[in-house]
């Protein structure tokens, strides 16, 4: 089981901030493929990965990062702090 979090427009497009997912995905990219296959709203949110960033266990990483031992994956647009 893994906690999947969504922020900003990704959260709005998918329609929820967080969910717990039972997955065997080995990488972030595999998890994204599983999510896209679920429903149109996921496919829409993940249509352009270049517009998204990902963090695994609260560290920024990329889409080919492994998910072994990961507890939390977050998807969000490029950050706009400051």
């Amino acid at each position, binding site marked *: 089981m893994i906690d999947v*979090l969504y922020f900003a427009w990704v959260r709005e497009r998918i329609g929820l901030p967080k969910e717990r997912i039972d997955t065997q995905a080995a990488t972030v990219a595999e998890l994204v493929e599983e999510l896209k296959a679920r429903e149109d709203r996921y496919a829409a949110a993940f249509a352009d990965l270049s517009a998204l960033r990902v963090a695994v266990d609260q*560290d920024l990483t990329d889409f080919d990062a492994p998910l072994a031992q990961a507890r939390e994956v*977050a998807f969000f647009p490029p950050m*706009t*702090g*400051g």
Partner: protein
Amino acid sequence: MTVRIQSDPFDFGAEANGFALNNNDAGAIVTFTGIVRNLPSGDLAEMQIEHYPGMTERALHQIEDEARQRWSLKDCLIIHRHGSLKPGDMIMMVATASPHRADAFEAAEFLMDYLKSRAPFWKKEITAAGEDWVASKDSDEAALARWSTKS
């Protein structure tokens, strides 16, 4: 070395004075404050700032650690707000304390550049016409790149 993420406003003057008093052996204090910018049309009703609790604090502490390795810093302070803000409201501040002003200035710029595109905050602008997530800027990435070319 302090990181504070809060929805409440902060008192910039009190924060800057307190930081200076706590670092009376530093000699140079640099502060930066970011405020909510109105749109050119003057139509911004509200800015909402979302963040990723947990990762935000973690990312800011990592950024501070990196600054302390690069420059001679006695102390750093980062305050960043989230939630609903109005034009002119202070969003965030950084303060750096160093024996030398060049270090204090450069470290403050470094903290700002990293904070803008590596700390998990997202801004949304609300006007009478609707709401829009603020897009990241290429210039923000360019600002980051200059720090990696330096040794």
